């Protein structure tokens, strides 16, 4: 079911969404990030890509999974903590970030479903915004089977037609959301249908970065564990966590107990994002570190995204958002790395 | 403790002067508020900035570092290094917006029981109106 929403009606629409928490890109200082918005007028969807993908809304960086304390006789008492979020709407989600969630679904799904993830995932309605203009010069979604107007993982997709949005509801969830505010929407005219189709078809052409024959990379990687390439590519790496923490598909976490007091015993068991780029990620208590240097950590990042994940889930663990390229302090460019892998003799 | 708000002060006292000074206050039965819990260290020079930040993180409402007067350090010059280090910590704490009143340094000799008593009294007096220190306190 396709609809048209006047841009001026965006705020009124949101006001109709009672009972939903709304997350949308807002500007803080000179960067854009998703935040909980209470006033629709704060929202401006004409934004370059957000620094952080909306992943923390569904997979927060820091999450308590249980609380513990000592009883009178000193025996520990534990209480499981399961999130009970309000229903929420993520507005203006980039298609690449939405696709990332479909990859999370594979990771946190399967035989054992991660309760913390799914509690939020199920409560969320994802309203995407097609990238009529690439939000980043390093966008390369088509390379990794995505598209600037991909609908994967979304419930609704908006396409910017100057003064209005072309609104496609893609799921039942999405449809219901539109129905709640029927009056604000009207059916698209033939012209609007054509315009939307044209913009979409052009959008892909505007993306100027890509990896040729990416398909050749995964099999190649299988044999490249000991390649010298990693040392060369990692020379400039600073071993920070930007590429992974800001990646919409990275999902590694670490579980630790944090005491608020040691006597009487009181604390929380917490899971925090972790990253393969930190030396302590693989540090053994023996003192041995199987990934002792940044080369082995860069290798892990690439192999995980373009080899292991492909083997396990038949997909690249990358949606081509380009964040790791644009935000890398030393300009390590995953596109170049993949090119070199492909051409590696 | 029910009733009115009682600030908690962590006091790092050097063993030879300030701790001895507070012992003297005891021997002379001087009275001061029980809000301060002393931690005796060997020298004010051994008080790491991390101790101070950590005390605030653990929920101290005020932190005091006290050592020997310049020239009297049992370890000759430890307190001179302390003086410089603490000055930097103080600058930083104020810069991030912590109330300057919450962090104090003093010279208290083994003979200055009275001074120690007064310092604690005054410290409690300035802390009470400020209320609990929540800024750097770890979320429970």
């Amino acid at each position: 079911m396709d609809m048209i929403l006047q841009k001026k009606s965006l705020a009124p629409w949101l006001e109709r969404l009672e009972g939903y928490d709304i997350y949308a890109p807002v500007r803080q200082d000179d960067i854009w990030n998703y935040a909980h918005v209470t006033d629709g007028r704060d929202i401006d969807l004409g934004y370059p890509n957000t620094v952080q993908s909306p992943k923390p809304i569904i997979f927060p960086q820091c999450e308590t999974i249980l609380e513990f304390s000592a009883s009178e006789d000193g025996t520990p008492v534990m209480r499981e903590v399961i999130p009970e979020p309000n229903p929420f709407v993520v507005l203006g989600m980039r298609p690449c970030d939405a696709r990332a969630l479909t990859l999370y679904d594979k990771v946190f799904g399967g035989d054992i479903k991660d309760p913390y993830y799914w509690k939020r995932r199920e409560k969320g309605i994802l309203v995407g915004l097609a990238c009529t203009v690439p939000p980043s010069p390093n966008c390369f979604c088509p390379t990794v089977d995505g598209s600037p107007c991909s609908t994967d993982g979304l419930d609704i997709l908006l396409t910017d037609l100057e003064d209005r949005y072309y609104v496609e509801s893609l799921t039942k969830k999405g449809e219901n959301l539109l129905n709640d505010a029927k009056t604000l929407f009207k059916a698209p005219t033939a012209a609007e249908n054509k315009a939307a189709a044209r913009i979409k078809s052009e959008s892909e052409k505007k993306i100027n970065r890509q990896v040729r024959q990416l398909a050749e990379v995964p099999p190649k990687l299988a044999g490249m564990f000991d390649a010298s390439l990693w040392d060369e590519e990692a020379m400039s790496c600073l071993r920070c966590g930007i590429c992974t923490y800001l990646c919409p598909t990275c999902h590694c976490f670490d579980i630790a107990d944090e005491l608020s007091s040691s006597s009487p015993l009181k604390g929380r068991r917490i899971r925090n994002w972790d990253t393969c780029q930190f030396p302590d990620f693989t540090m053994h208590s023996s003192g041995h570190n199987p990934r002792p240097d940044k080369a082995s950590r860069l290798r892990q990042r690439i192999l995980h995204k373009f080899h292991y994940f492909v083997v396990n889930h038949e997909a690249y663990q990358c949606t081509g958002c380009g964040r790791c390229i644009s935000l890398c302090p030393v300009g390590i460019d995953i596109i170049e790395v993949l090119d070199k892998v492909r051409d590696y003799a | 403790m029910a009733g009115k708000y009682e600030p908690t002060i962590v006091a790092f006292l050097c063993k030879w002067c300030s701790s001895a000074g507070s012992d003297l206050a005891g021997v002379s039965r001087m009275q001061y508020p029980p809000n301060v819990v002393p931690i005796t260290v060997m020298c004010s020079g051994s008080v790491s900035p991390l101790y101070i930040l950590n005390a605030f993180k653990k929920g101290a409402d005020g932190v005091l570092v006290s050592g020997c007067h310049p020239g009297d350090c049992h370890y000759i010059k430890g307190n001179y290094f302390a003086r410089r280090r603490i000055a930097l910590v103080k600058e930083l704490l104020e810069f991030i917006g912590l109330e300057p009143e919450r962090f104090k340094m003093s010279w208290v000799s083994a003979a200055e029981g009275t001074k120690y008593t007064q310092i604690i009294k005054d410290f409690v007096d300035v802390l009470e109106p400020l209320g609990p220190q929540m800024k750097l306190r770890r979320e429970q």
Partner: protein
Amino acid sequence: MVNLDDLKKEAKRILQDDKVKYVVGYTRSSAGPLASPVFIEDPEKIGELIWDASCVQNLAKFLLDEKRRKGRAKKPDTRPIAIVVKGCDSRSVNVLLQEKYIERKDVFLLGVSCEDLGVVDQKKIAQRFEGKTIQDIKFDLSPELAVTTEDGTVKLPIQEVLADRCLECQANFPVVYDVLLGDKSRKKVDEPFGSLEEIESMAAPQRWEFWQEQLGKCVRCYACRSACPMCYCDECVVDTIAFAVAADTSAEEKAQKIKWIEKSPTKSENFGYHMVRAIHLAGRCIDCGECERVCPVSIPLRHLNKKLEKAAKQLFDYNAGFEPDKPALVSSFRDEDPEDFIR
């Protein structure tokens, strides 16, 4: 004016004469407008070197990698490496020398003077082109640069988008070097700590609000620490586990690793991390601005260090990175150090 060809010539010479293992310099990047580091072993590849206002990074950081590499190697190659250093970068080399982390013979310094200019602040450029996606920036027409966005190319003077640190620079040309390219005249700086005024003028509660919002953004990617040439500890106060593990380290000792700061990016822990970092950089930070530059959520981290730099200067007349043979700020004192804050 630094002549790029001279830089290439010098770099090529030391490679050909086998004076150094490799040269670390700057090169154009496919990732964005700012220069990326490049590691050149082959004299014939020297053409990749560039020098312009996009060369922001402090390459001294790579001296740390080289030291680690040597540490791991069975038969370490003890030849020095060459790095291209700006004034600020050279001061960080001085601090590394002062702290005996490296020896002077470990490094060949290709000094380049920023003269009366400096390097750009990408965020300032972004602000100029509000909301637009910057496709390309050309730096090779100093003192101007050309910015291309979807609606065309615009020229603007580099001076207008210089990094704050360059506006407050204390050493616009290297203070230690083996080769120096460019002019050696001291650039006049009226307000070396001007950028602090805004925050200093706030009332304490405002300052708290300011930092609470800023540090609240921190995602603990540790890019600040990773980019900092002074952050060379093998084990950082925020690391979750002990790296200092030897064959004889007992389980108890391992367990005793103090959690000064928890991994959770909560307010108290973020403050803990950034304050400890600032304290540990007191008298060591030479204001290369990398921590702030690399921060993905643009926390004005430089101010924290700048504040203590100011304190060191004003209270103790100490200037980091100028006198590698003198003791460090916190391992020295003067009888007349101020103590008016002490009762």
